[in-house]
């Protein structure tokens, strides 16, 4: 693969971007283009595959190879492409309905197989393109067009789902924090294996403000916990609070009172058990005594990628048996000849 010195602008297409004004997708598009430029990859070596939904218009706005496929199947299509062409940089753009509802099956199986692709899950907790029905990540009792008296469903926690499917890279970011989103996109890109990046994205038409407690300046520092590898888990206006483990149970402590920074849980992306604890920090932020919502890399592990094992097996058998001889195969082992 060749390396280039492209800028973010080189990844914009000549098509008008047609998301609603104010949609969180604009920011994500910008951060992705900036990240792509930073990778040094040539445009022709990158493929974006999407499903159906607002987010899935993404490929049309990105000057690489792209496919806007069908609802829920981007992950399945990307799996085949990556298996066939391991050298390509494959990105999947999907939403909470696309990848967790209609396409849930393919999502978990892609993660299990650990294809080296990047899944960008734009989570806005609503169906936007179909004009406002609740999604599998919507909070309980959600009032929407399809649930005028409140939804009955318990929502998915996407991070837990990804960890449960044994994803080897699981992270969360948000549309309103460009620097963090870029860092997470780069980390997802650099990870060898399936990267699952959940991006909180505001739908200002059908679900406006659903994440504002995490994204607005007035509450962000109190409500979010940005995780840094090897560092104690701190949050608050000036990092005065932290997360301490009481056995397996995370609790909020104030530094300088009973505990110092040395008592806090240290973030270790490679520790699956800690990742599970962090994933469970999924409280309703409007309830009393809730824990802050973590952002950053929950987990990063190593496992062989499907496409590499597939290629290795093919190469090994080709070396062992030699390149296939079609005439020998067509004749088989039991031939008889008829002469007239």
């Amino acid at each position: 693969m060749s390396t280039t010195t492209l800028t973010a602008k080189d990844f914009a297409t000549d098509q008008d971007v047609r998301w609603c004004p104010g949609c969180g997708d604009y920011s994500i598009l910008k951060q992705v283009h900036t990240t792509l430029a930073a990778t040094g990859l040539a445009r022709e070596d990158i493929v974006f595959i999407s499903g159906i939904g607002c987010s899935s218009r993404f490929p049309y706005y990105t000057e690489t190879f792209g496919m806007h496929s069908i609802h829920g199947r981007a992950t399945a299509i990307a799996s085949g492409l990556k298996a066939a062409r391991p050298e390509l940089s494959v990105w999947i753009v999907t939403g909470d309905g696309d990848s967790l509802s209609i396409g849930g099956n393919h999502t978990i199986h892609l993660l299990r197989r650990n294809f080296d692709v990047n899944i960008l899950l734009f989570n806005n907790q609503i169906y936007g393109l179909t004009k406002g029905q609740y999604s599998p990540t919507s909070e309980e009792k959600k009032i929407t067009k399809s649930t005028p008296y409140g939804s009955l469903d318990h929502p998915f926690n996407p991070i837990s789902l990804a960890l449960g499917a044994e994803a080897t890279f699981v992270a969360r970011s948000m549309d309103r924090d460009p620097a963090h989103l870029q860092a997470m996109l780069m980390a997802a890109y650099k990870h060898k294996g399936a990267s699952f990046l959940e991006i909180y994205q505001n739908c200002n038409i059908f679900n406006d403000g659903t994440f504002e407690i995490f994204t607005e300046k007035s509450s962000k520092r109190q409500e979010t916990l940005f995780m840094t590898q090897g560092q104690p888990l701190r949050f608050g206006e000036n990092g005065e609070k932290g997360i301490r483990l009481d056995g397996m149970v995370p609790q909020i402590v104030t530094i300088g009172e009973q505990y110092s920074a040395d008592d806090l849980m240290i973030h270790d992306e490679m520790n699956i058990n800690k990742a599970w604890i962090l994933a469970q920090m999924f409280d309703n932020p409007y309830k009393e005594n809730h824990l802050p919502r973590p952002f950053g890399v929950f987990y990063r592990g190593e496992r062989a990628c499907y496409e590499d094992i597939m290629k290795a097996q093919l190469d090994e058998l080709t070396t062992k048996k030699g390149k296939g001889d079609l005439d020998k195969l067509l004749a088989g082992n039991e031939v008889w000849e008829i002469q007239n």
Partner: protein
Amino acid sequence: MSTTKTIIPLEQVVIKFAGDSGDGMQLTGTQFTNTTALFGNDLGTFPDFPAEIRAPQGTVAGVSGFQLHFGSTEIYTPGDMCDVLVAMNAAALKVNLKQLKRGGIIIANTSGFDVKNLRLAGVAKNPLEDDSLEGFELYQLDVTKLTREAIADLDLGTKEKDRGKNMFVLGFLYWMFDRDMDNTIKFLTDKFSKNASVLEANLRVLKAGYAYGETTETFSSRYKVEKAKMPAGKYRSMMGNHAMALGIVAAAHQSGLPVFLGTYPITPASDILHELAKYKNFNIRTYQAEDEIAGICSAIGASFGGHLGVTTTSGPGMALKTEAMGLATMLEIPLVIINVQRAGPSTGMPTKTEQADLLQAYYGRNGECPIPIIAAQSPSDCFHAAFEACKIAVQHMTPVIVLSDGYIANGAEPWRFPTSSQLGNIEVKFASPIENGDKFMPYQRDEKLTRPWAIPGTKGLEHRIGGIEKQNITGNISYDPQNHELMVHLREDKVEKIADYIPEQKIDSGKDTGKVLILGWGGTYGALKAATKDCISEGMEVSHAHVRYIRPFPKNFESLLKRFDKILVPEINNGQLIRILRDRFLIPAIPYNKIQGVPFMKGELVEKIKSVYNS
């Protein structure tokens, strides 16, 4: 003790091997088939599996059968009625007796007719002991006892010893039809190379069966079926699903393309996956996806990347793949979709055959969504159908549906296999890089109306495609009314244009004009051919044509139909091709339908042809 045995020459014979699903009847049938093929007879087979993997032992539901028709003349079907019925137990006799000719031979394993087996089969009286089998030639062998005796000294458990029962029967039939045992001896030697005592047991039982026929006075006659006169060349025995897999391998080889098979197991198509999974050194990747949808979608992804994407399935899986077939039609990329049809709807009867899904293949998608359809007509023809489908897919940038069915998928026949040089190359063109900064036009078409195959990794070809309607030439999203109509017509014209590149429709038997044309498609080929030939030999002005290219039809198709007074369309369904014929050509064709999960018998076809001819 040795006796003089009469040898009776026969032109053709139909044998049915029937027993419990644990009795090894499929293996016995396959071995007899291979030996018979190697000897030089023409043949056709029809395995008849029980629906359950391990149905209750001894019951009617657990009966597994294998029918073989072989002869010194041309054989087109596995045969209507049997000459010889091997019944390993009471249930096997009960299920198959109605298919035995009057005067036919029954070889019954007496230990399969004990009190317990009679009860399990739901038979009140032992048919071997009353006069219910009068009019048949009944031979009673205590196969279980004879098998145990042959290997009494071997250190094996009773259960293991009893597994050899089928070899005793096979050996006996080899004697009865004067076949040599070398092929089966070699097969057993390979199969049990790591288990000396089991090998020894099988070989001894096989030979004991042969010797039993030779030395027992009960059997006074043997039968001889001479070699068939077939076109000169090299032959092998071939089953439909195996042939389908080889057709794909051959297409990969002759096109230089890697193959990606994305699929999900389903009866009766899974054997194509099992076969292809063996051929990795032919640059073939097989991917057992999480479901039918992922099977086709992964193949679409691979095709987008420049591989030949293939997916295999049966009716219910086809239903699940429908939306993705529409996507492939919009993307205009190569994709081969193989449907080994079974009785439907829904789960239907998975182990039973039916020409169930032609209308689904032809019409069954949302929107105007034309996909070429090729129907395989016999076990070995699956090879050619798959090869041609791959060729059309890559040269016309389109998904292609191949229809097979459970009957030809599991049936076998002698195949005069081609060499790679006879197959010819499949030329594939990928779009070239653009270095000068010009914008690539993904929906710019050539003289075949196909768009370029532009694969990722090629400089200057970055483009976006998808399921949304696209602007002609640029491929950008377009909701323009005129453009949509244009694109619908372009996609249809592209598929219709394939007619310029496929052979014209031929008459298979009979003259190219006449009173009745018997028109079929798919797996009914052998039965229709046999029936038509019989009618022709009786002086009737009838002809048989078999449609292989159903979408588009060959260019001369309509004019050919119009040269006959009447068109009879026999199908193993409730009338599907006939609806398409009426739709396309407004012709008053006459249906003849059988929807019983089993193939046509020659006899019933002849009767129908006569009644149409004479009416």
